[in-house]
Structures are given as C-alpha cells and as structure tokens.
C-alpha cells in the first residue's frame, strides 16, 4: 500500500479531534465528526441568510430558499441522480424518516394482502421495523434474504426469495455491522423483472463508496448527512420522479400545500409535498458544505485511505488470539466497520474499558438485533474508521485491547 497512514493531514480540519488529541475516535459509523467548514457553514447561514425559506418574499428568505435549492442540486449530482433532477431530492430528519416515509406513503400504493416485501437479515432496525409495520398494515409478508458468515448473499438466495409476489425489495447498501456491500444492483434487476420496486438504504455506503443511483437502477435511495460529515438532523430521500409524484404526502401541514380550504387541501409539488413544516435550512446548507469538503479531498482518496486503515486494523487484530472477528475475514470486503468480540468479555465491558484508554468504539446490538441473533450472538463490538483516522488510532485500540486482555485474563 502506498498510502502513509501514519501521517494525518486531515485531523486538523476537525475541531473535536484537535481538542482531543489523545482520543482514538473509532465510531464514525455511528456518526462522523464534522470539519470546521461545516460548523462555519451552519453559523454563516444564521448570520447571513436566516429567514424562513419558501415563506418570505424578501431578500433573506429568497437567499435561504436558494440555498436549499442549491443543496438539492449538489446532492442530486453527488449520488448520480443528475443535477437537473434536483427536485427529486426530499429532505427528512434522517435515513429512518426517509424509510418511514416510504413505508407509509409508497408501500400502500403497491402492497396488497398476500404480497411480499423482501429485506436482508443485515438491515439496521430503521430499514426493518418500518417494513414489519407496513406488512402488518397491508396483510403482506416480510421475507428475509440471509447471508453466509462472511456476509455474502448468494445468487441462489436472491432467486429463491424474489418472486412474483415481491412488490418491494429494500436493502442496506453497506451493512453497519459487517461492513459488506450488498448486491443492490442485482437485487434491483431481479425485483424489476417481477414488476416490483427497489429501495436502497445508503446510510453506510454514501460516506465510503461513490454512489450512482442511475447505475444501481434503484427506485429510491435514502441516506443521512451526519454520517458524511454533515450536521445531525438532515436526512435525504431520492426517488424516481413519477413514483414520488404519485405518492400521497407523509406528514401534512405548512409548506406542503398549494391551497387549503376548510375541508380539503391541494398538495404542493415534489419535493415540498413531503416537507411539512420549517426545515432545518442551516443544516441543509451545512450538508451542502460537507459534500463540497468531501469532493475537495476526493471520495476515491478517502476510500483508498480507509481501505489501508482497515487492512492495518485487520492485521493488528490477528496478533490478539482472543479476538473473534464478526463478518468477513477479508478486510477488502469491509467498508468502514470492523466488528469483533473478545472471548469471554461482554462488549459493554470492552467498550467501557477502552473508553478509559481513550479509545471510542461501539458496543451492543448496533440496532441490528436479528442479524446478531442470526450470527449466534447477542452483542458485539465495532471499531469503524473514517479517512481522518490514522495508524496511531489503531495502535491505541490494539494497546487498549491488550490492557483489557490482561485485566480479564483472557490472554
């Protein structure tokens, strides 16, 4: 590998990491840190264009409205939807809300009793519970695609589970536990052949992989800004225009109407139809800035560095005989997330003790309880990397695990 992971030219961009120089932050899959430019953008919005977007007819409000439009254009281009299709970008609070929007507004338009919705066993609860509920409401069946111990879903499994009754396949693009990339393009092909629709949960893929929704040929794509260095509270839903257009609104109220009478209302067009109430315009503006930051560094460069970090992490983990790796052994198959258990030590104790050593990792069920049960465990630990991590962070993790091994006598 030609990448120097000991050097870290990126840390200085992140105020929290600068303030905590001894912290090994290895939980970016839960939420990333934000660079100074994102924090500055949030402030800039309030200082220079704060007014309620859409409502006012004066200069400030027009600027606020424009900034939201620009963010839509940027996001549409970023995920390969095409800048010209920016009005198919709907803002929500997070990926969960984007998926709920689909489960409430889209699912009833296609699901009938006896139909099937197909998801993978590695879904985050946010792409599982909305479908459990949607299926219950429609009298439909929720069908699971199972993976092998390396997190791979076979062609045979996909062929077996996707059939004439399948109206929706909703799959996580990259698993938050296993880090594997799912064959969403193939799933789209299979479900389209049956006349159904493809939804992709991109919360964990957008920060690591160049996404092209046209190439994936999916019908909807959801992700969250906070995992790609934007502020918390901004979710995105992209959908094919004709589908969004035909769907009823999810939440109703201000800003999502064309006209209102005492007993009825006419909806606004897409995307406003799905954006009831005042949006977090400053957050949207800052999300735009986060994408600019990513583009300036280059997503491909980030991906390369993350792959090098992941390879080093996997190599160092092998030194510790008491580590049980969860998911693929091949680090090249992991985007960001490395899950593991320490033999005989509860993950909460692992993360608690690591915290004492200034190493932040996630422990628990990772909002993927059915996946962990399927893999034969209740909980596990997860170290996740972003491009702003370095060799030292991983060495700190290994040193801390070594301390833990001594404390619990698991050597």
């Amino acid at each position, binding site marked *: 590998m030609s990448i120097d992971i000991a050097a870290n030219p990126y840390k200085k961009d992140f105020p929290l990491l600068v303030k905590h120089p001894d912290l090994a932050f290895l939980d970016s899959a839960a939420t990333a840190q934000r660079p100074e430019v994102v924090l500055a953008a949030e402030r800039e919005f309030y200082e220079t264009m704060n007014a309620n977007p859409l409502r006012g007819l004066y200069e400030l409000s027009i600027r606020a409205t424009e900034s939201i439009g620009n963010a839509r254009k940027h996001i549409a281009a970023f995920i390969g939807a095409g800048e010209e299709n920016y009005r198919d970008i709907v803002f929500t609070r997070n990926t969960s809300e984007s998926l709920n929007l689909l489960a409430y507004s889209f699912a009833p338009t296609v699901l009938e009793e006896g139909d099937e919705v197909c998801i993978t066993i590695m879904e985050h609860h946010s792409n599982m519970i909305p479908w459990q509920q949607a299926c219950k409401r429609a009298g439909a069946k929720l069908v699971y695609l199972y993976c092998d111990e390396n997190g791979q879903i076979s062609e045979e499994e996909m062929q077996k589970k996707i059939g004439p009754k399948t109206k929706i396949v909703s799959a996580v693009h990259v698993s938050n536990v296993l880090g594997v990339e799912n064959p969403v393009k193939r799933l789209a092909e299979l479900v389209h052949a049956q006349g159904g629709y493809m939804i992709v949960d991109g919360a964990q893929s957008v920060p690591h992989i160049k996404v092209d929704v046209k190439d994936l040929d999916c019908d909807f794509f959801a992700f969250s800004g906070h995992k790609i260095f934007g502020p918390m509270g901004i979710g995105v839903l992209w959908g094919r225009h004709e589908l969004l257009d035909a769907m009823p609104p999810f939440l109703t109220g201000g800003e999502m109407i064309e006209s209102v009478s005492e007993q009825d209302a006419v909806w606004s067009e897409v995307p406003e139809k799905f954006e009831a109430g005042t949006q977090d315009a400053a957050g949207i503006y800052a999300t735009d800035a986060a994408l600019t930051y990513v583009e300036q560094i280059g997503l491909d460069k980030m991906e390369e560095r993350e792959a090098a970090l992941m390879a080093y992490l996997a190599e160092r983990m092998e030194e510790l005989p008491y580590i049980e790796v969860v998911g693929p052994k091949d680090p090249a198959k992991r985007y960001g997330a490395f899950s593991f258990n320490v033999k005989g030590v509860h993950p*909460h*104790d692992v993360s608690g*003790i690591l915290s*004492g050593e200034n190493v932040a990792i996630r422990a628990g069920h990772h909002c993927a309880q059915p996946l962990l049960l399927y893999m034969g465990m209740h909980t596990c630990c997860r170290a996740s990397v972003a491009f702003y991590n370095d060799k030292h962070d991983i060495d700190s993790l290994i040193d801390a695990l070594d301390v833990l091994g001594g*404390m619990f006598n698991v050597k």
Partner: protein
Amino acid sequence: MSNSTTTSIYSAALMDHNAHPDYKYELEDATYSHDGINASCGDEMTLYLKVNNDTNVIEEASFTGHVCAISQASADMMAGLLEGESIEEAKRLSGLFIGMIQGNELSDEDKEDLDEAAELQSISRMPARVKCAELAWRTLNGILSERDKELAGK
C-alpha cells in the same frame, strides 16, 4: 475524557465477583423467579429467591444469565447480601443501592450495610452503565412488588 472513572469501576472486588460468581446458578426450589432485561443492551438475567413465607426471610438468592461484568458482579454481591435478610431489609437495601447509583450520597452506616456493593458507587458517574449495576436490584424489586400484590390479594 479522563481515564480514572472507567478504570476505577473495574475494581478488584468487581473483577473477582465477575470471574468467580458464588451465586450464579439456577435455584431449583426457588419460591420466586423473575426475568430482568437491560433495555440499553438487551441483556437478560433471571433472579431466583427462596423465601420462607412464614418468617419473611430470604433463605437463598441466585441468578443466571449472560450479562456484562458490572451486571454480573452487582448481582453476585446482591445475592450474597440478601441471604438471611428479611424482605423488609431487602427492600431497604434495594432503595439504598438504587439511590446510590442514581447519585445519592450514603451515610457511612448505610455503606456498611451495602457492604461490597457500596463500592459500585462510582458507576453513578457513568450514565451508560447505571442500568447494568441496577439490573439485579430492579429485578429484585419486580419480585418483591409482585409478592406484595399476591399477599394483598389473599
């Protein structure tokens, strides 16, 4: 982000109770048993009590389950503490312990009554682990309040 709190939680006593719990077994002739779930992680514990309902004395307490070191050590300390105590005393100790974990200061006398369990006081400064320390005690409260209801119904 100081090291002291997290590491000090894992005291020698806690590590010992975790590694060699005296009371981790299924109590075959339990009078009461109750499942407790730590909602923050999904960990489950079953608590067993053998109570002499004539004298209202807990004769034996034990637990089972796959839980973290803090939950396990706390349960083991509790089971040892409860043995031979009256139901009323168990309720008082539970109040003291949960109060302590919620941040109440205890008198030296109360600390003495909680014995080793008083050492878990530092967990009150770690909100993420409060539920772990409380799990056994909250499960105990579940048994005791159900018992109260049963007796009131008779």
